[in-house]
């Protein structure tokens, strides 16, 4: 595999990570994830029905853990304690699987991360043997703190979860990328393919998204577009863009040999 994304010592060919929420049904979920090429897929942990609907299909039958790296999240948790408890349940559910996505939210209006609680949860989880990929604010100092705690990836938001507002502060993302020794994955805010490409061109190691695919008019088609955008953005980053030349044009064609000269 050339240019793999390496998280906690494991290599992945795809730099696109996808969520599994907001799809019409499990068939569409599976089809979109196949089209995205993602190998790491996030899931949420919720109470099951307790016998009211025993034949209900299970998401993990559609996305078998033997085939995908399942990344359980703590979406909906507003305290470190709830997040830790949720991920301990996830670890039991997934037979000891250590790789998790930590997010501790600050309020239901913005879903902005509560960083003090996030740092506290990260510390507990790392000590408990989890490999923590962490949703965080785009603050380079707190990203470094999370890295120092031992998180295996930092995942700053590009804009609010589910907003589709794109990359609102590329400069902060660059500060985080330039300083980080662990993968930096933009998590939240991507709206369309160009947003994903911009994140990758900035030097992000990957992009995690859900709503941009699931709420597109044609989710499966958008999943394919995102796959290409992430690949194109990564290639452009590695290729190294030309410098920006403000107010100075530079013709691509020769200036000599013009007819009539």
């Amino acid at each position, binding site marked *: 595999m050339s240019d793999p994304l390496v998280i906690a010592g494991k290599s992945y060919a795809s730099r696109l990570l996808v969520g599994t*929420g*907001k*799809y019409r049904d499990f068939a569409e979920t599976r089809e979109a994830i196949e089209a995205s090429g993602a190998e790491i897929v996030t899931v949420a942990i919720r109470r099951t029905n307790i*016998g009211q609907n025993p034949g209900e299909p299970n998401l993990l039958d559609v996305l078998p853990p033997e085939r995908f790296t399942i990344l359980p999240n703590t*979406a909906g948790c507003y305290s470190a304690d709830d997040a830790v*408890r949720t991920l301990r349940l996830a670890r039991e559910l997934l037979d000891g699987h250590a790789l998790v996505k930590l997010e501790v939210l600050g309020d239901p209006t913005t879903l902005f991360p509560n960083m003090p609680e996030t740092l506290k949860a990260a510390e507990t989880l790392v000590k408990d043997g989890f490999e923590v990929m962490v949703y965080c604010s785009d603050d380079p100092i707190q990203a470094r703190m999370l890295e120092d705690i031992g998180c295996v990836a930092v995942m700053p938001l590009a804009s609010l979860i589910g907003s589709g507002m794109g990359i609102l502060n590329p400069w902060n993302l660059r500060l985080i990328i330039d300083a980080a020794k662990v993968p930096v994955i933009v998590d939240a805010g991507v709206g369309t393919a160009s947003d994903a490409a911009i994140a990758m061109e900035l030097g992000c190691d990957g992009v995690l998204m859900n709503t941009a695919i699931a709420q597109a008019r044609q989710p499966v088609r958008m999943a394919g577009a995102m796959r290409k955008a992430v690949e194109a953005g990564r290639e452009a980053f590695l290729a190294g863009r030309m410098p920006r030349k403000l107010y100075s044009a530079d013709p691509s064609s020769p200036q000599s040999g013009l007819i009539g000269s």
Partner: protein
Amino acid sequence: MIQLVINGQAESVEDGLSVAALLHARGLAGKRLAVERNGEIVPRARHAETRLADGDRLEIVVAVGGG
């Protein structure tokens, strides 16, 4: 009978019921799920031997779609 709280709902079940028997009775045996009892994980390997007690609070969770 003993009183439990399962996923936030009060329930009465027969005395001496194990976690495994409860899951079986609810059609949840063999499903991909995880059980927490009074804040502590009950590992799958101990479902059969873990007897429920009056006042136990259980959380039974599964993976669902999420971002």
